[in-house]
């Protein structure tokens, strides 16, 4: 089954990265957006997104390969994948 990995704190990214699989996606939200510039995201091979309002609220820039999405994108990712895992 496919998972969307919801990274709520930047420290959660470390664990998340070891457990992703093909078909998964990663979403950075809340303090998780601080991980948006992590170089490991580029090599991940699965889609990575970050919530733009959470990033703007923290003065964080979202740059490719991370896609900027709204909470509608958050909902879409949850719906499109079989389950979600929160890494807080």
């Amino acid at each position, binding site marked *: 089954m496919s998972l969307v990995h919801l990274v709520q704190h930047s420290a959660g990214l470390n664990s998340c990265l070891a457990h992703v699989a093909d078909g998964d996606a990663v979403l950075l939200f809340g303090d998780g957006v601080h991980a948006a510039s992590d170089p490991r995201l580029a090599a991940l091979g699965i889609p990575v997104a970050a919530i733009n309002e959470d990033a703007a609220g923290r003065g964080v820039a979202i740059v490719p390969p991370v896609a900027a999405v709204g909470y509608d994108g*958050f909902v879409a990712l949850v719906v499109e994948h079989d389950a*979600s895992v929160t890494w807080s």
Partner: protein
Amino acid sequence: MRIALLIQGAPQGSDAPAAALRFARAALAAGHRIHRAFFHKDGVCIANRFVSLPADEPDVAAEWLAFADRHGVELTVCVAAAARRGVVDAGEAARAGLEGATLRAGFEVAGLGQMIEAMLEADRTVTFGA
């Protein structure tokens, strides 16, 4: 889809309840349904009616209540977690030998079984951590 939300962070210590609310709004806008919003651990602190915020600080609890009222979403706080944090209805308070109540109107207390049921019935469950 029916989506259940599990919220574990308090409004003061965490962005969890605010993020969960933005998620819930977006879910409804996309035609989905919030099956239940269940507050566990420090998340129950949202339901303390004695919370009094400075005028320039947003009241996430009030925003959740307005949303729930408008869209018929049930806001449930874990009875055990709430009792540990001083959030009790009159019945719980009386059982503990106390007079009064601290539960804010619009929130209901219930056991963890309600969350398990919601998880079983919903198509998706999303955790908002502390």
